[in-house]
């Protein structure tokens, strides 16, 4: 028998595989939009331990009781090891769907379990919907700004992404109506409208009930699909609960995306999609092709966790923590950001969206902020067309209150330097209370704390 030679390069599978030009001719056209961006390079620096990162979208997993985690995993090992280590159904286990029904029930939704597919995180649900519905060049409508993580997905399916402006009541549905009319006159039918109606990522805004009703009506009247992404619905710190689009529509024209990431753990990579049966059939085929099934082990974990009947208490605990952090961040913004800045005051979710005077580019500001050991997401990441360059997304869920105060203080300091410099450059005297700017901001949000 021939001896198997010892592999010589343990560190890498094949030396030389970094030479891109050897493969460049083989790449599919869609990879042209999958860019490693300069911004991603900058974001790589945020991983330095001394950097206070308000850039991530991380939930706080530090309060999850380790003993509970240990007990659940032990139970799985003792009682269901063979099954938990096996493949599972593509659609997901019925028991996982029962947990999903509980979560959706908490927001007043009652879907048919057959309309549900368990996915590898909410991100895969977005990907599968795109895979099912988008041909290259198809129009997809989303909010401006939109979830930065949806953009690479939409672009990799070569969608023509059109963004509809948000205000403090979410996507401006009247602007959407006009856009739909324009598209119709061009003979183009959008494949779907992607929206995060509650505590939007990145803007933190929530779509008003009136707009929700109107959007659902439009969808029905024009047979338009709406993809409702609702990762944060249960993380409400103030205001009245809002019915999800799925509930208002009944599930005919709304595809619903949910996740356990923000109410339990993003590490378990469990999300789901709910879609009308003909759409679900295609999504299931797409899922099969992508990864056969969602992790069996983590589905078992969720089942055990929900059996303890504590999940809502845990969400309540998170809500308490995040409410405090949101309030801390809002206070820090009032104390440290210049008078010309505006920001949203979210009733829930993980993010605040701040907009600076239009002479400040937040990508450049990030370079300066990183030298002060603090990071945020520049607003451009939430647009497909380069807009958003005066805005930033700030996360308040992943860092503690002291870090939030210090992080916002540091950002405020670099902004103040830019403001002073601009004043010196233009000869404009700094006014202690300058008039509210209204026009140049991307989002016409009112300044926090002011009457609307």
């Amino acid at each position, binding site marked *: 028998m021939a001896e198997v030679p010892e592999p010589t*390069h343990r560190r*890498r599978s094949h*030396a*030389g*595989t*970094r*030479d*891109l*030009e050897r493969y*460049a001719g083989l790449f599919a056209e869609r990879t*042209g939009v999958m*860019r*490693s*961006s*300069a911004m*991603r*390079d*900058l974001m*790589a*620096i945020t991983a*330095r331990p001394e950097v206070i990162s308000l850039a991530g979208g991380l939930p706080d997993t530090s309060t999850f009781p380790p003993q509970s985690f240990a007990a659940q995993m032990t139970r799985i090992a003792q009682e269901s090891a063979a099954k938990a280590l096996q493949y599972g159904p593509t659609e997901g286990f019925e028991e996982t769907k029962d947990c999903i029904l509980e979560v959706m029930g908490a927001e007043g939704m009652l879907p048919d379990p057959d309309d549900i597919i368990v996915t590898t995180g909410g991100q895969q649900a977005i990907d599968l919907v795109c895979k099912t519905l988008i041909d290259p060049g198809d129009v997809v409508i989303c909010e401006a700004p939109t979830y930065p993580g949806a953009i690479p997905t939409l672009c990799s399916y070569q969608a023509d992404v059109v963004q509809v402006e948000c205000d403090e009541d979410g996507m401006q549905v009247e602007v959407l109506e006009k856009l739909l009319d324009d598209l119709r006159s061009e003979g183009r039918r959008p494949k779907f409208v992607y929206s995060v109606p509650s505590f939007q990522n990145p803007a933190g805004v929530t779509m008003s009930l009136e707009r929700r009703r109107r959007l659902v009506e439009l969808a029905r009247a024009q047979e338009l699909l709406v993809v409702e992404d609702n990762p944060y619905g249960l993380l409400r710190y103030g205001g009245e609960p809002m019915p999800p689009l799925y509930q208002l529509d009944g599930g005919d024209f709304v595809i619903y995306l949910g996740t356990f990431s923000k109410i339990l753990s993003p590490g378990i990579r469990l999300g789901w999609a709910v879609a009308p049966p003909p759409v679900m059939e295609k999504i299931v085929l797409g899922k099969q092709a992508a990864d056969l099934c969602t992790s069996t082990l983590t589905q078992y974990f969720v089942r055990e966790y929900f059996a303890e009947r504590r999940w809502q208490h845990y969400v309540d605990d998170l809500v308490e923590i995040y409410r405090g952090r949101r309030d801390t961040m809002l206070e820090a913004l009032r104390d440290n950001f210049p008078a010309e800045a505006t920001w949203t005051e979210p009733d829930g979710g993980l993010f605040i969206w701040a907009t600076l005077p239009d*002479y*400040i*580019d937040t990508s*450049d*500001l990030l*370079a*300066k902020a*990183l030298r002060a050991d603090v990071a945020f997401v520049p607003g451009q990441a939430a647009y497909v067309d380069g807009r958003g360059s005066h805005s930033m997304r700030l996360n308040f869920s992943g860092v503690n209150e002291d870090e939030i105060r210090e992080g916002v203080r540091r950002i405020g300091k670099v902004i103040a330097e*830019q403001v*002073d*410099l*601009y004043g*010196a*450059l*233009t*000869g404009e005297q700094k006014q202690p209370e300058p008039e509210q700017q209204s026009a140049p901001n991307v989002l016409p949000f009112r300044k926090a704390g002011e009457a609307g």
Partner: protein
Amino acid sequence: MKVAVLKGGRSLERGVSLRSGARVEDALERLGHEVLPIDVGSDLVERLIAERPDVAFVAMHGVGGEDGTVQELLEILGIPFTGPGAAACARCMDKVQAKDAIELVGLPTPHWFAFNQTAFREFGAGDALGRLEKTLGFPLVVKPSRGGSSLGVRFARSPVEVPQALVSAFSYDDRVLLERFVDGRELAVSILGDEPMPTVEAILLEGDRYDFEARYEIGRTRFACPAELSAEEERAVTEAAAGAYRALGCTGFARVDLILGDEGPWLLEANAIPGLTDTSLLPQAAEAAGLSFEQLVERILDLALSPQGIS
């Protein structure tokens, strides 16, 4: 030979540097060298003293790695290293210093003014901006004096765009320059040892020519190498680049960027540690000269061990 590959660091170009470094490490391994990858941090000196590499391959870009800091340390430790020495690196990194040095030897570089923040904050330099119209004309280019990869570089098409461009540029350095915009073909001449490589031309396919991202991503900028130049143009461009290389005191290698306008070449800047990624210009130029990436890396190492400039 034991080769330390210095990469990463804290500069804003960390990402590019890690890609350059990884590619160099691969090549060194294929060449049979013992590779010691070092993501440069506070333990750099300690590691270099402990590991005693025969030579250091500096694959760092931007502040810290390209400005002479690391080179100075390597000089103190007596470890031979690739690329220009500390003083030349410092001159190349600072565009104002580099332009001074280039102009001093009578080579053409676009007319410019340099300001530091103090000039605006304390001396009211803002009032002088109105004169730019007459002196530099519009559009003009605003650049941080020290910085790479086009970070913070902005066009100003009219006087009202200047303050905002300055705010951007000042995000990267305390000193900025305002430079007359010269229209023409964007060229780069890499010099290896005392040998100019074939000229590369960057032909922008989409977007803004001073877009940071376009330079590092396949598909947005097309590179022609060798650039289609007449013999006379080729000579003028190469001579200007070699002149700048000499004026800046470079050894080992460097990449000189220029614009070929109607009246001939204009020198913009020199990069002491040009990128070595898949999309970087030096490797492309070397390939056009018949050098594979491994051969290029080997030659760079040889030059580090027996330094010679252009005589």
